[in-house]
């Protein structure tokens, strides 16, 4: 053998050794900045062994199998995004919040697969009738279950909830959100270990999804673990528990998180509703949608998330998975710019409800849903479809191009020489904005044709979603009124019906840059109804108010849905009793089972 060649090999080996050394150094430094706990068995050892592999390939098989075999009933779930961290204080991320239903399932109320509220840690749902809510609607008393324990044996008590409230409000913690604790809550008290009393500044109806709820990630922290950390560090920002919540209260307990790769949750044998049927839930981080699809087809994952409608026909043909269509509260919608203010002005024709109606009548929305969304969904009738407050009596606006023409004629918009309608010298030409998402651009094209047939011209504009959704303060095109008709997906505080999007006080302006009312609608009657429902703690009376709101929105054509926007999941046919809720998908994980 030639000497030069072997010298080159030596060089490479030397370089390899340097790299391996650098790799070995990095994890070794970490413990000086983060106090080590037993927590996530970070696999520094495991990858380090194979790193040596390229230099000495024979060494690998000889390595003892250090990672233990997990075995048992493992349910694996593909996750297209990795959790930011695992503390309800520090993330609002949908992918993380779902996990709280596994290891930190201590919301007072949860929601089932029909999105109905169920008492969870609260023994019953407080109401005025059962005395849980005071007559003035300002004090809510929760009776907590007394048989729930943290996984280290310490009982879960009202003090844990009070502590959580204190941590949310502490200036020492850079928490994600204080809403609504900083605006409506006066105080949170534990009158005895199993009685929690929340006092509000004014009657507050949406408490079920915002006060110690999974929906806004305000579940309770273990006081006995985290209070000492807070006292020692002065903050919870760097608590080891944020990444390795080894003490939990749910059906599955945190076991391991290898960043970028997976998270595992182990069945909690002492779960208060009995030991879960599965032994382990395994979340595999699969960031690429196409790779997720391949993994589903190969049977390498049991549950797939955020499936694209275009993949559904092929997946259904497989015969190995079920498609779960879960109401998420989101509705793909048309919004009309009703601003008359010069800076944010919409097309003047949009001030007329009949013109808005004609714009909708000209388009066959059912056909769009059939062609672009493979018939998986259809237009929602109201903004609250799929919820207890949805009014079943709302009439849909039917596809009727002739009727649309007549309405426009009657409103004074006559067809001009170029086939486009005009009135007082102004053409009926609408700026139609949406994001760059493929299905939205396709919708735009179909709508443009349909409008053309009744004499409406459309100027199609698309923006990337980060630009499109920018606030008034950040000069977002919709928030600053640079549109006539806009298309995007939105939801109420699902599964609570509350929303602030139609309030006069939410109209964005220089004085109010974060305003959410991007249609610039200020209808005094509608505004009053929305304000009233937010203070009406009586569920029945509140639903009545929502019926009135929905009738008003439908009559005046303030909002129209193009399609209901459910979440699509795949569930392996090997699994049983997986019943996703749109609000809290993993609420019944303790019942999930897997057949071999």
């Amino acid at each position, binding site marked *: 053998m030639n000497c030069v060649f072997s010298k080159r090999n030596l060089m490479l080996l030397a370089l390899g050794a340097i790299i391996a050394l650098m790799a070995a150094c990095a*994890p070794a430094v970490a413990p000086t900045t983060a106090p080590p706990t037993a927590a996530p068995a970070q696999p520094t050892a*495991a990858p380090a062994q194979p790193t040596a592999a390229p230099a000495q390939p024979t060494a690998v098989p000889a390595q003892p199998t250090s990672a233990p075999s*997990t075995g048992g009933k493992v349910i694996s779930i593909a996750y297209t995004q990795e959790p930011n961290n695992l503390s309800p204080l520090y*993330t609002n991320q949908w992918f993380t919040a779902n996990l709280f239903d596994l290891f930190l399932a201590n919301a007072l109320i949860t929601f089932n697969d029909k999105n109905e509220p169920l008492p969870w840690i609260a023994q019953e749902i407080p109401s005025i009738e059962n005395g849980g809510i005071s007559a003035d609607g300002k004090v809510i008393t929760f009776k907590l279950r007394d048989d729930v324990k943290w996984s280290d044996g310490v009982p879960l008590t009202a003090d844990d909830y009070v502590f959580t409230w204190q941590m949310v409000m502490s200036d020492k913690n850079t928490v994600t959100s204080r809403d609504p604790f900083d605006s409506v809550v006066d105080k949170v008290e534990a009158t005895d270990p199993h009685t929690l009393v929340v006092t509000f500044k004014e009657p507050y109806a949406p408490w079920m999804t915002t006060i110690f709820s999974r929906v806004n990630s305000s579940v309770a922290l273990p006081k006995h673990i985290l209070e000492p950390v807070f006292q020692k560090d002065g903050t919870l920002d760097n608590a080891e528990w944020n990444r390795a919540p080894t003490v939990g209260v749910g059906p599955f307990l945190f076991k391991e998180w290898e960043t970028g790769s997976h998270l595992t949750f182990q069945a909690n044998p002492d779960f208060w509703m009995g030991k879960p049927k599965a032994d382990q839930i395994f979340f595999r981080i699969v960031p690429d949608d196409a*790779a997720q699809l391949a993994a589903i087809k190969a049977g390498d994952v049991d549950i797939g998330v955020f499936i694209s409608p275009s993949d559904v026909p092929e997946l259904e043909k497989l015969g190995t998975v079920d498609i779960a269509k879960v109401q998420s509260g989101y509705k793909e919608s048309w919004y009309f710019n009703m601003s008359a203010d010069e800076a944010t002005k919409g097309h003047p024709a949009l001030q007329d409800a009949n013109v808005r109606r004609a714009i909708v009548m000209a388009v066959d929305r059912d056909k769009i849903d059939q062609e672009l969304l493979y018939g998986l969904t259809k237009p929602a009738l109201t903004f609250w479809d799929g919820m207890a407050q949805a009014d079943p009596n709302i009439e849909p606006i039917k596809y009727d191009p002739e009727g649309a023409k007549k309405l426009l004629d009657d409103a004074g918009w006559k067809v001009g020489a170029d086939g486009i309608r005009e009135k007082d010298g102004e053409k009926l030409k609408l700026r139609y904005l949406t994001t760059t998402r493929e299905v939205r651009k396709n919708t735009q094209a179909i709508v443009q044709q349909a409008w053309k047939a009744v004499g409406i011209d459309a100027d199609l504009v698309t923006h990337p979603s980060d630009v499109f959704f920018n606030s008034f303060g950040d000069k977002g095109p919709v928030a600053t009124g640079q549109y006539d008709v806009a298309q995007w997906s939105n939801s109420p505080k699902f599964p609570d019906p509350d929303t602030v999007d139609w309030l006069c006080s939410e109209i964005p302006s220089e004085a109010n840059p974060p305003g959410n009312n991007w249609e610039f609608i200020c209808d005094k009657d509608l505004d009053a109804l929305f304000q009233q429902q937010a203070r009406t703690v009586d569920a029945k009376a509140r639903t009545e108010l929502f019926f009135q709101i929905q009738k008003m929105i439908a009559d005046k054509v303030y909002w129209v849905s193009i399609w209901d926007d459910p979440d699509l999941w795949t569930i392996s046919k090997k699994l049983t009793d997986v019943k996703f809720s749109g609000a809290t998908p993993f609420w019944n994980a303790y019942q999930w089972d897997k057949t071999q």
Partner: protein
Amino acid sequence: MGRYIIRRLLQAIPLLFLISIIVFVLIMNMGDPLVSFAGRNGQVKGKDRERLIRQLGLDQPLYMQYIVWLIGNDWMKIDANGDGTPDTPGERRGVLRGDLGTSVVTKQPVLKMIGDRLPNTLLLMFTAEIVIIVFALLLGILSAVGQYSWYDNLFTGLSFVGFSMPVPLLALGLIYIFGVYLKRAGLPYFPTVGMFEPSVGKTPEQVLWHMALPIATLAIISIAAYSRFIRSNMLEVSSQDYMRTARSKGLSERLILFKHALKNAALPIVTLIGLDLGFLLAGALVTETIFSWPGMGRLFYDHAVKSDLPVLMGILMLISVSVVFFQIVTDVTYTFLDPRIRYH
């Protein structure tokens, strides 16, 4: 030689400072730094936004934020509760004192996050680099020796296909062929994504098995490019006068090939590999993403979309240091390969 290396290392210091300033300014202007605090369809608004901007120090002027990143803020007081008076002592020590900071998103020390990912990336990238070098040399030399033979033409054809293959297409193609169709046909197969099967656990065998497809993806494209490069270098060297001299001396073809041809052709190849080695730490974003490999490329991307400055700065500085380091190593390697090169 020793003085040369020291001089190169000293020259690297201002360079790294310049890089850090440019990168810092670019990241700061790159998007909403609070995006990771937002929920499903939105942004952080109103009071929460004001509070977080203050708590994270984003209300400070840019140069001040850079200084804090560089030398920390434990020598000054900050306004943590928003009452207008700075009264809380800072706790950061800064990069120059070994504190890369804490991720805004994960609340973990950046050093730990990089430490978690680096071994995975090096395992994948280093193995791939070895595969690439071995196969590229093999194919390149074979092609050059048998110029215009049937196998040279075959390699030429294949390398054009390989080189023009987009990474996602190649990766998903391999997944479908080896992960989905072979499995469905009941044949031996390779797994689609991840590092191991959850029901078996993370054993070296599992990791090796799961590495096969990502390494194939990384290797095929680079082998195609490098083997062409080696072939043309070998051919160029073969027509030199000293090769004719060597042949006329009656040396064996084998000796001529390895001692005279390859050694001289290796110089530009070493440059290429030297550059590669510096970037190995960066990982391979697309390949890691498709195969769910928990490496550095994905760490960078995940935190780039969340505008997580400490993590991005940490990774970019690490890569910069490594590239500078391996360039020096490459230059030193030249002296082994080419006695004509001497550094002073």
